[in-house]
């Protein structure tokens, strides 16, 4: 990656991290495989930012590049407005990261593992006890890492990141393999970290799970940016909300609802899908039941149909003909003009 080339978009001090035109290919037996292709990522400071995409979409590769673990083929990256990996040492103390699974020495105790990391960054030993207590492992610090459950390992990894008291935390698939209680715990932890003023970047392939905790999201597929923004605006791309009503005579119900100013459409057998008509504003379920009851059509069931990130993602990938985790040959890099257009469209 060239350091002298000017970045494609202006550096923004309001961003915790950003990438521009980031590209990474891997050599495989069948030639080169694109992992990340011209990715533009913008993570604002503060809050939880979901970095979403299916397995193999390039999330972990992107995170590894940001952390200096692997080298990009091209593109620029910044962390707290510092170009990385060149100036990563200047900001690394402000970044805590867990890439994929927690990785510690299995034969060492949790405390010894953290003591080594603390020694490397010059943190006092007392900090080790603090962070162990903070993640609820104070009592189990003397146990070997290999004896930990997956949830405990994940908590230990979070404790490791907290040794630095970082402003930015990067969690890569933090809930992989966890039970529901563990997932809930991690979600709560991320939220509380963000509420304490930190920026949390969480990558996941379980989109609905992140939807519950994220303030902003970036969705990628096959290493390319598909959508970004706050959760509400992304969800709006998934279509309008609707209610599905089960009635004895769907055709008659549809007529009544049309006359009442709704936009009904046939749903699964025995049901009608009701949306607000254009210009009607938000759909009101009570208005739907009232309109049907006024003609003596009584509901057997009413279910809200709200778009979620998964639907948005599926809709985006089908639009772009992108599948999940399928390797594809390297296309030629985009001409500079096309790249400039793409940036222009984003900014």
């Amino acid at each position, binding site marked *: 990656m060239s350091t002298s080339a000017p970045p494609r978009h202006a550096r923004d001090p309001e961003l915790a991290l950003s990438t521009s035109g980031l590209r990474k290919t891997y050599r495989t037996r069948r030639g080169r495989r694109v992992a990340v292709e011209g990715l533009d990522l913008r993570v604002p400071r503060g809050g939880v930012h979901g970095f979403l995409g299916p397995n193999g979409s390039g999330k972990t590769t992107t995170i590894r590049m940001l*952390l*200096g673990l692997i080298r990009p083929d091209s593109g620029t990256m910044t962390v707290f407005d510092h170009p990385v990996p060149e100036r990563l040492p200047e900001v*690394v103390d402000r*970044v805590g990261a867990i890439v994929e*699974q927690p990785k510690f020495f299995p034969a*060492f105790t949790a405390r010894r593992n953290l003591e080594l*990391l603390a020694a*490397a960054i*010059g943190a006092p030993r007392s900090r080790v006890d603090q962070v162990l207590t903070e993640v609820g492992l104070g009592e189990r610090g003397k146990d070997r890492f290999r004896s930990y459950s997956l949830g405990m390992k994940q908590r230990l990894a979070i404790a490791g990141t907290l040794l630095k008291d970082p402003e930015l935390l990067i969690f890569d698939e933090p809930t992989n393999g966890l039970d529901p209680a563990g997932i809930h715990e991690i979600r709560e932890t991320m939220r509380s970290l963000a509420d304490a003023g930190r920026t949390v970047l969480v990558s996941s392939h379980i989109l609905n799970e992140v939807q519950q905790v994220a303030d902003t999201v970036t969705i990628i597929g096959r290493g390319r940016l598909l959508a970004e923004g706050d959760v509400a605006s992304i969800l709006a791309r998934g279509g309008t909300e609707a209610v599905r009503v089960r009635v004895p005579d769907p055709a008659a119900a549809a007529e009544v609802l049309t006359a009442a100013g709704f936009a009904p459409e046939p749903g699964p057998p025995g049901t009608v899908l009701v949306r607000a008509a254009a210009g009607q504003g938000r759909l009101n379920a009570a208005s739907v039941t009232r309109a049907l009851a006024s003609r003596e059509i009584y509901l057997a069931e009413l279910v809200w149909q709200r778009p979620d990130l998964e639907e948005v993602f599926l809709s985006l990938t089908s639009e772009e003909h992108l599948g999940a985790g399928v390797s594809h040959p390297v296309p030629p890099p985009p001409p500079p003009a096309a790249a400039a257009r793409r940036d222009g469209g984003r900014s």
Partner: protein
Amino acid sequence: MIRLVGAELTRLRSRRLSIVAALVVLAAVALFQIAIHSEVAPSAAVQAQGQQAYEQAQKEWQDSHATNVAECLQEGGSTQEECESYDPAPTPQNYSAVPESFDEVGSIGVTTAAYLAMFTSFLVAASFIGAEYATGSLANWLTFVPQRLKVFVSKGVAVVLGSALLGAVAVFATLGLTAAQVAAHGEPLVRAGHLAASGGRAVVLVAVAGLLGYVLALLARHTVAAIVVPLAYGLVRTVLVGFTQDADAPLAWLPPYLPELNLQAFLDRGATYSQYRSVLADGSDYTEIEKHVSFAHSGVYWLTVVVVAVLVGAGVFKRRDVT
């Protein structure tokens, strides 16, 4: 950097393999002392018995030596000296009639301890970095300290210091305990300074072995792959012998560049090796040519090995993706 080296040293000494290796080395030192006890401090009864056996052998040799040499010459021995060498005079040492000198036993001790410590430190060092790749903790480490060269150097320094300590314990414990046994038996510590210097050089070689184990495992990203390298060399070496013993063979120039000869030359301030040249066309007779590898040569050899290993290791580690 000091902070990082300290953290790496803490990890090195906390590892189970390091502790096991240290115990194995100490056990070997103890076993060596037991093994040499009867050599350096034979009891009066053993000495008397040995003296008797020696005198008997001396008498037999005197009776038969002239006949043996004459027969040798008749059967085709080329020179008087050659035939004399086939029937050497017995020595009191052969029969434990006198204690082995400190020089003799100490030299064996230094060599034995050096080779054992070199093997052990190579193994520990390879495992030290191999475990980081195997567990993925190297990636975690780099998220705390992203400066690759700094990380490479700190780990290397820790390995070299740890190996040197192991080597020093192995070599000087062996020498010290041997000296104590010899002195306790009232014998002089012959060439003690020479042996101490040889021990110092052995410690350097143990540190080099540790460094090579570290770099090889770093390049291979696997402990076992690194350990396979010297084993594979051992296999190749057995094949190479056939191509290097003949003074006129295409690979006759190779021995001075092989590690084992340079190890010996560095430890003993020079080493000799033999090559052979056929005298008769059918190869049924040959002459032995003795060649020498100097201490300076071995010093330059090991310095080159270290510089190349460090440069290659650092270069690869700086650029390599760590996942």
